């Protein structure tokens, strides 16, 4: 019955954490995510070779004991480059998501809590950003500033930001009419305090779900941009660039495509699964709770 399903969200997380970790799918997803972070931080030190170490005698090498995933057209060790690519993927996604989440939250709160005209203005702005294809934005930015990791982060941050802003805005709009906001105002509590203490904690939950679902998207976007040559400039070992190289060199060796594609796929899968599981735990619609 809708009445009881729409009970406002007050999840008792502590009670559900053990159950959350019992699910094998969750464990699997967590492992991947953990591995991703671990390799992102320490992969470089574990790599058997330097990513720029050329070995012209071993070009297009098949996997062997010395080179686990073979070598590329310049004789560089693919395995080492995959490991190092994790760092690029991690940096880009953390920076981009971090920037877009923080801007999105601020703009969303402003739009949801602020005056009507500000809301309309911000929504107009966000909608126009939202409808702007990121490839176009990337192309424009790169022609203007040249390609760099910073530009990739910026492009991704700007294009994902509207989603967060809208999410926060919608929840804020529904929370701001609650009696407890009125109660806070009746005590002369300042607007900033109200937003920080009484609104933000009640609207932030879904953002976590979205973040974990967005990280793979960002990684894919970064890969796609790099694939198109618009992303992280060489010789930085981005998975997307490896895929790109792999496609051009597919006649010589299939291993480059596999080596670039599999980590991309695994990471995407891991984060998406985790996001879905998180949603199951946090989402009000799927939970039963007392009146």
């Amino acid at each position, binding site marked *: *019955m*809708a*009445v*009881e399903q*729409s*009970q*406002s969200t007050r999840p*008792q997380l502590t*009670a*559900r954490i053990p*159950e959350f970790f019992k699910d094998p799918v969750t464990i699997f997803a967590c492992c991947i995510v953990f591995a991703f972070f671990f390799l992102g931080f320490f992969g470089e030190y574990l790599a058997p070779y330097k990513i720029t170490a050329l070995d012209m005698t071993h070009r297009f090498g098949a996997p062997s004991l010395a080179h686990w995933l073979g070598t590329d057209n310049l004789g560089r060790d693919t395995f080492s480059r995959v490991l190092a690519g994790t760092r690029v993927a991690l940096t880009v996604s953390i920076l981009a998501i971090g920037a877009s989440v923080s801007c999105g939250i601020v703009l969303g709160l402003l739009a949801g809590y602020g005056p009507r005209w500000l809301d309309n203005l911000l929504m107009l702005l966000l909608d126009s950003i939202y409808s702007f294809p990121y490839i176009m934005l990337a192309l424009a930015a790169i022609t203007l500033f040249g390609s760099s990791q910073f530009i990739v982060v910026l492009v991704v941050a700007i294009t994902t930001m509207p989603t967060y802003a809208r999410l926060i805005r*919608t929840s804020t*709009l*529904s*929370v701001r*009419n*609650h*009696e407890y906001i009125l109660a806070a105002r009746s005590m002369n509590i300042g607007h900033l305090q109200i937003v920080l203490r009484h609104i933000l904690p009640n609207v932030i939950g879904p953002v976590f779900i979205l973040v974990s679902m967005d990280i793979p998207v960002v990684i894919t976007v970064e890969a796609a941009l790099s694939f198109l040559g618009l992303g992280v400039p060489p010789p930085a070992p981005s998975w997307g660039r490896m895929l790109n190289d792999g496609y051009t060199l597919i006649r010589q060796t299939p291993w480059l495509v596999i080596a670039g594609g599999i980590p991309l796929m695994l990471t995407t899968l891991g984060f998406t699964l985790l996001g879905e599981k998180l949603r199951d735990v946090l989402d009000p619609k799927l*939970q*039963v*709770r*007392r*009146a």
Partner: protein
Amino acid sequence: MSSKMEMEKNAPVLEINNLSVGFNGARGQAIAVKDVSLTVPPGKVVGIVGESGSGKTTLISAALGLISRQTAEITGKVKFEGRDILNMSERELRAIRGTDIAMIFQDPMTALNPSMSIGTLMTDIQYRDRGVSMTEKRRKAVEMLRHVGIPDPESRLTQYPHEFSGGMRQRICIAMALLGQPRLLIADEPTTALDVTMEAQIIHLLRKLQRDFHTSIVFVSHNLGIIAEICDYVAVLYAGCLVEQGEVDHIFHNPQHPYTKALLACDPALLPEQVTDFPAIPGEVPGPFDRPTGCIFQARCNLAADICRQVSPPLRPVEANHAAACHMAKGI
């Protein structure tokens, strides 16, 4: 009418057996309902009264499977028309709630999704009627809103919950509950936010529902006047325990448990003139972690004797259709 149907007609709609609910907390289990048994006969109105915090809401939420097993330990049996509620899957429960059982919550604002308009809320709730058109659903919603006394319902369908007064929200909840023509209606203080003329009309509406559709009603209220007005049976809860239960006339005219007597005496409707001191029961309800052995009411009872501090009194009959859990109550 065949005898089988006859039997079904008289079988209780809701049967609660030895239900206990303890909330898991940092300091261990906080007992909110202890060993409560209660039956709701078909077509009857059962009232639940008791101190605030005595577990009325918890009792009915647990009986509807609304309390998740992770937050609380629930023991006992709850049967709705013979079917075991506590062991049902979430899907089965959802299929029952809303059509067969409807519930009106105490706090109307938390029961209405603030981001949906009343019209959407009220048509969404009819999601089971697949074949019915949207206009028909809206018409039914409007009709029900008019029934519960919302003026000019057509134009109010587009408004959001916060644009209604507290009493109107409560009536919207009532309307939503009645839309499904449930066989069991559970109402948690449905009329506290209404003025007496509106209250009288809602009571009238509930009576009509009970008469026309043979709906059973569980009615939680602190307003003893309303309890006397609408209920056939009354159950009195104190600190999670059922202390007295019986026909409404017995409870009001021949209360046996000291708590019931004290509660009835506190009703301001009985006060002759303006006072500065309202009657209240001295003392406090025992907390969830310091429940005494023996009678739960002993600390506030002026009849308390040694036996009360040692043995907890069982619920035993004092006359036909009337039972009390007190050592000093005269049994039969």
